[in-house]
């Protein structure tokens, strides 16, 4: 068959990448132009949102939250929140029974936050602990959520506590967050305490129900409670909102005009 006839390589067909004539040394390989180290650091966005972020068309991550746009690339979060700190809550080994014995993998729970209104939670399972942690950090970055903080009493200085009583549930674990006066600190078990510290909540009372020893459920319940702070309709939000344009539409009209001018 023809595939044996070519003296090129063992490949029967070369397709793209196999050059003929002057094209041969032109298209193949990339000895030139490769930065090497450089490539690893620059981020080539894949989604439209990523491209908008890279072009600096979006000023803050709040614009993305406002329109509930799905964030698929963790570099977007890195770009807006460079000072995120991560915390490994737990590394749990899980086993699966196979014919050849037991297969053990490690599940890592990572909480990430900037102590100023953004938290994320990531869970990842992998054969190695380091891989699980790395994967969980990326997933945590992708799940970063804004946290609404409010006041307990007088509206003075910066918000320091949750705006109202919120609760979150996962499995049988229920966590309830209650506003606290300034100076109380976070009155909670170590697991939700970590999460609330990373969220930037300074004072909070908590109540936990259900099986809080199941750390996975417990931390997810607290994360859900923190997320609910922005879902709660408080009286100050009663006034009608003026809808702004989504980042995907914002610049259309603006850009249409200068183009006309340039055509002359």
């Amino acid at each position, binding site marked *: *068959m023809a595939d044996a006839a070519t003296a090129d390589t063992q*490949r029967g067909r070369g397709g793209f990448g196999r050059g003929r004539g002057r094209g041969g040394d032109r298209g193949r390989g*990339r*000895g030139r132009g490769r930065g090497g180290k450089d490539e690893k650091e620059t981020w080539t966005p894949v989604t439209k949102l990523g491209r908008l972020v890279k072009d600096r*068309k979006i000023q803050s991550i709040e614009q993305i939250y406002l329109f509930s746009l799905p964030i698929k690339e963790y570099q977007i979060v890195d770009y807006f929140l460079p000072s995120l700190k991560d915390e*490994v809550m737990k590394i749990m080994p899980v086993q699966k029974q196979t014919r050849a014995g037991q297969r053990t993998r490690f599940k890592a729970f990572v909480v990430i936050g900037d102590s100023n209104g953004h938290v994320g939670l990531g869970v990842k399972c992998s054969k190695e602990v380091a*891989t699980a942690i790395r994967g969980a950090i990326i997933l945590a970055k992708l799940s970063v959520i804004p946290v609404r903080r409010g006041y307990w009493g007088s509206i003075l200085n910066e918000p320091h506590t949750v705006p109202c009583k919120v609760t979150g549930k996962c499995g049988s674990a229920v966590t309830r967050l209650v506003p606290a006066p300034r100076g109380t600190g976070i009155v909670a078990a170590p697991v939700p305490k970590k999460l609330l510290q990373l969220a930037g909540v300074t004072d909070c009372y908590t109540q936990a129900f259900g099986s809080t020893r*199941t750390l996975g459920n417990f931390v997810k319940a607290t994360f859900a409670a923190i997320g609910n702070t922005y879902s709660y309709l408080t009286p100050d939000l009663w006034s009608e909102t003026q809808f702004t344009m989504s980042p*995907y539409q914002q610049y259309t009209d603006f850009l249409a005009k200068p183009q006309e001018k*340039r055509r002359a």
Partner: protein
Amino acid sequence: MADNDNHMDQDQENALEEAQVMLGFAEPVDLEEHGPLLAEDFCSKMGGLPIWLNPEHVLDTKDMSCDQCHKPMTFLLQLYSPEDHPAEAFHRVIYVFCCKNGACHKKSPQGCFKVVRSQLGQYNPYYTPVSKDDEDAAEENEGWEPLETSKHAKTCFVCGMYGPKVCSRCHKVSYCSAEHQSIHWTKGLHKQLCGTQPPPSPANLSELSISDNKESKDESEEEEEEEEEYDEDGNVIEKKKKKKALTQTLTKEQQDYANKLDIDYRLVERMNRFPELEIISEAEIFDQEALEEGLADESSGDEQEAEEGWEEKAAALKLKREKKAALLAKKNGGVSKSLETAESSMNALVPVGDEVYENTKTDIDSAFLTFQKRIALYPDQVLRYARMEYELTNPEPLYVSDIGIPKAGDIPPCPDCGQERTFEFQILPQMLNYLGIDHSAADALDFGTVLVYSCKENCHVEGKHYQPEVAIIQHFSEDGMQGGNMTIGPNVSVSSK
């Protein structure tokens, strides 16, 4: 085997042997070293004007119009992918055209990408056949010259397809339609230059619409466009020799015009074409096992907690991270409060007996994560070419989501020979970064990936120079990464005490 030492090292040679996928990267055309891209280079490129493999028969805009807006499509890329199996596919190029208007894509993505295949045998009336019998030498850089007797069709100055009409004033520039003529008249400076200069042939006019490879505009040695081949007289070689002398004078004068009118040349170029770049190929070197292990990471339901042997590993890792954090804290001035206190870390590692029924599923877009993991090795790849071997099984494309995966029935078989179409290559969304489109516009071009399927047998039909192939577009899913079974939503109220 011919080895081009100056371009590929041993690693890449080995990878080429076993590679399953060839990756394409977009690189600017290196004008100093290799000169402009010409038809006899048989290269792959994106943007600019299409370089026709068969210079006598070129595509007509009738065949290459968007299904939605009925305007001629813009040339996106061409891939030179020769095959050995049918002798007529010795030279083989796949052309991809797309509609530049993103609104058409939103309405119906499938009609806005068109793919055609063009092939030529080794002995054809346009290029010299290989001079030596040894194919290795042919691979080096010998032998491919355009034949003097090859005829060239007139091509439209704006889009590069068949251009039967000419400018009514100077009768020198060809167009495919009245719209492109008016575009060239206004945005392409033809209004100012028609008839006023020494006869502006497409060769010299190409100096005007300079692709943005060179930053400096008064580069008198620029000869990038291939249009010198498609001269009306059919006199290819003469033009080439004359061109160098002409370009030096013309560029400067037209440069003055531009300065007077204050027009950005690059804007003129991009009005209807994408920026011209070359597509360089490289084999994908990756560790199959590591990848597969990574893919199997998602939690399965029947896992239970283990208790032996892992504590040391986890504790050691924890210690390492703590040390690193402490070092960083010291570097930063020491005041940054590390939240990793000793007690909390100990608590995190203590195994608890009854955690068998943990709810640890996360709602992730696993197909997208797989996709991301695979491209993370080479983040700036724009193309994945998968038809490397005469394999029995068809290679699988890298999907970007679970939705929109084409089933076997979605891909029509080749209309000419009836054989099935198999996956050949896919265009990745990173290419959109290189097209110079404005992403913030509501109707900007956007896709997840474009999968191109082509006839398995590379059938050849006499007289039919461009055979249509199939492009399937897949978009990203709208899922975010959070949610799942966490109740983030309206407040669940608990009675207060």
